[in-house]
């Protein structure tokens, strides 16, 4: 009696999914195991390789026989270390500055696109979406010449204004170039979020004499904060990952960002896999931690039409 019960239970494990689920538990967990292997396998290999001696790496040991911090000590010390710290600082400066600029400018523009009626609003949204989706390669050549010559901020026909010095090999060049994808992206996403905020609260504040701008600052922006946070996270991650502009516009050790420096661990002279994997771990740590800690915002951003490439 008992054994037949247990038999039925086991059989159900293979054949019958729980209510409103699709798969029986056995197949579900089989799938989860495969998914975990596929997802974490290469990542764990990166971690273990970074803790291995070159001897172990070159003899095909997947796990280190004598775990060591040697690769990390190489990475963070000496000339390699100073280049790496420069790159960390550049990546951080460029990503943070782009994010702040993008969010401030994008919130103003996003508000106009979301809440105000004006001619050409939909056309403008279309153009902004197209800009967000076009590849960097579409505009990289003129941007390069622009950075080489410096950006001109003078008012036409008056001679009043300011012409920047050449911007190649500076963080400013990368910040300006990154705005070309981050700003359309933020304006698009933020206008969506701001439109999602309930109108009633806004109208109540407006009637209380707040004025359009006051309402925006005091009511709308705080209510849309989760959306703004998601947009900021995506912008930061996108800039951290940006490669093609950085590769074209920076040549000096003082101006290179992380992806470029990590890229150079392989190629030039000899390939030091230990150093490369250690560098990869450190460079990936900030975005991985951000994504895991702020998972909720990222998911909400993705379902709102966020694109991170």
């Amino acid at each position, binding site marked *: 009696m008992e054994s037949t019960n247990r038999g039925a239970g086991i059989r159900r494990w293979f054949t019958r999914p729980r209510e409103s689920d699709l798969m029986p538990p056995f197949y579900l967990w089989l799938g989860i195991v495969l998914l975990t292997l596929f*997802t*974490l396998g290469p990542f764990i290999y990166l971690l273990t390789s970074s803790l291995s001696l070159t001897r172990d790496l070159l003899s095909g040991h997947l796990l280190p026989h004598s775990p060591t911090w040697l690769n990390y000590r190489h990475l963070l010390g000496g000339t390699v270390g100073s280049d790496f710290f420069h790159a960390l600082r550049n990546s951080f400066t460029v990503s943070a500055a782009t994010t702040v600029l993008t969010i401030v400018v994008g919130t103003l523009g996003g508000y106009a696109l979301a809440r105000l009626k004006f001619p050409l609003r939909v056309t403008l949204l279309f153009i902004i979406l197209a800009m967000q*989706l076009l590849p960097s390669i579409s*505009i990289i*050549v003129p941007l390069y010449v622009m950075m080489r010559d410096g950006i001109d901020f003078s008012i036409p026909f008056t001679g009043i204004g300011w012409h920047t010095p050449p911007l190649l090999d500076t963080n400013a060049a990368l910040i300006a170039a990154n705005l070309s994808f981050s700003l359309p992206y933020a304006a698009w996403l933020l206008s*969506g979020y701001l439109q999602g905020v309930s109108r009633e609260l806004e109208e109540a504040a407006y009637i209380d004499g707040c004025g359009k701008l006051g309402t925006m600052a005091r009511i709308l922006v705080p209510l849309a904060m989760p959306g703004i946070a998601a947009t900021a996270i995506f912008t930061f991650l996108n800039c951290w990952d940006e490669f093609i502009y950085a590769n074209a516009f920076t040549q000096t050790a003082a101006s290179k960002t992380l992806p470029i420096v990590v*890229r150079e661990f392989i190629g030039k002279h000899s390939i030091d896999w230990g150093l490369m994997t250690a560098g990869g771990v450190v460079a990936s740590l900030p975005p991985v931690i951000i994504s895991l800690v702020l998972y909720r915002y990222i998911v909400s951003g993705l379902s709102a039409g966020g694109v991170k490439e």
Partner: protein
Amino acid sequence: MAEPNAAPKRKRAKFTPAMRHDALLAYVLLVPTLYILFRIFIVPIFQSSVWSLYKYNLMDGSDPKPVGFGNYVDIFKLQDFWTSMGNTVYFTVFSVAAELAIGFFAALLLNHAFKGRLLFRGMIMIPWAMLTLVSGLLWNWIYQPGYGALTVVLHNLHLLPDTSNPLWLSSSTKVVTFSAIADIWKMTPFMTLLLLAGLQSIPHSLYEAAVIDGAGFWKKLRHITVPQLLPTAIVAVILRIIGAYRVYDILTVFTGDAKTSTSYLTYNYAFRYFYLGKASAMAWVSTLLILILVIVYMVLLRRNQDSHL
């Protein structure tokens, strides 16, 4: 005298003072966004279309010379260009198809209610959050002949005879295939999260009704999940096609052969040989191809009506 004239005029334009005030405020708020986008997107993309009609070679220092559509004729006659196009299409189709298939099943799994679901949902973000460059380097390390993880694992599982030691990256086609696998590993989570959001919006009552009708796993999948998920899936696939088409950074890790993708070839024409005219023409071919996809994407967004357009 003027009064009765003015009123109907205003009515004809359908523009009240409040609306005019709104529009004015909108333009003021949009000024920073529009100014920045004009300078770093509109002007460059226009510039690039002009240069695509010029012989503009930075290396020989000669002045740009108009050549009409000569650059386009040249690149269409160029075997390398068509090879790169073929490789890009192959890369895009292979990686997006695999991402859709794996992402779909991963989303099905993670949509089940089970203990630790959030943990697994977070886990799949790790590859996606890593630097693209690092995931390229990691997979390049995995593919190393002799001591790389792929060879070692295949040897240990006896799927590969001990005496055989294949060079995984020995030809351009193999490079494209194996770098597509790296892209699949990194971007499948993106697909999974988008599809998961789609799955969550399918009403449970549909499945419950199907269970009453005695539908099994495959029937439920075919008659409910797939049709309900289709709009989300199409949007996700288009976004991924646009993303995969621009592949550049991963490939630079695997090979110096620029024919492996159109972006790579364009980049090299611009920043290795400094043929800015030809590079601009190539960039415009890509721009037009992507624009077609962008328009398809916009039409779908409007049809799905989950956007603020």
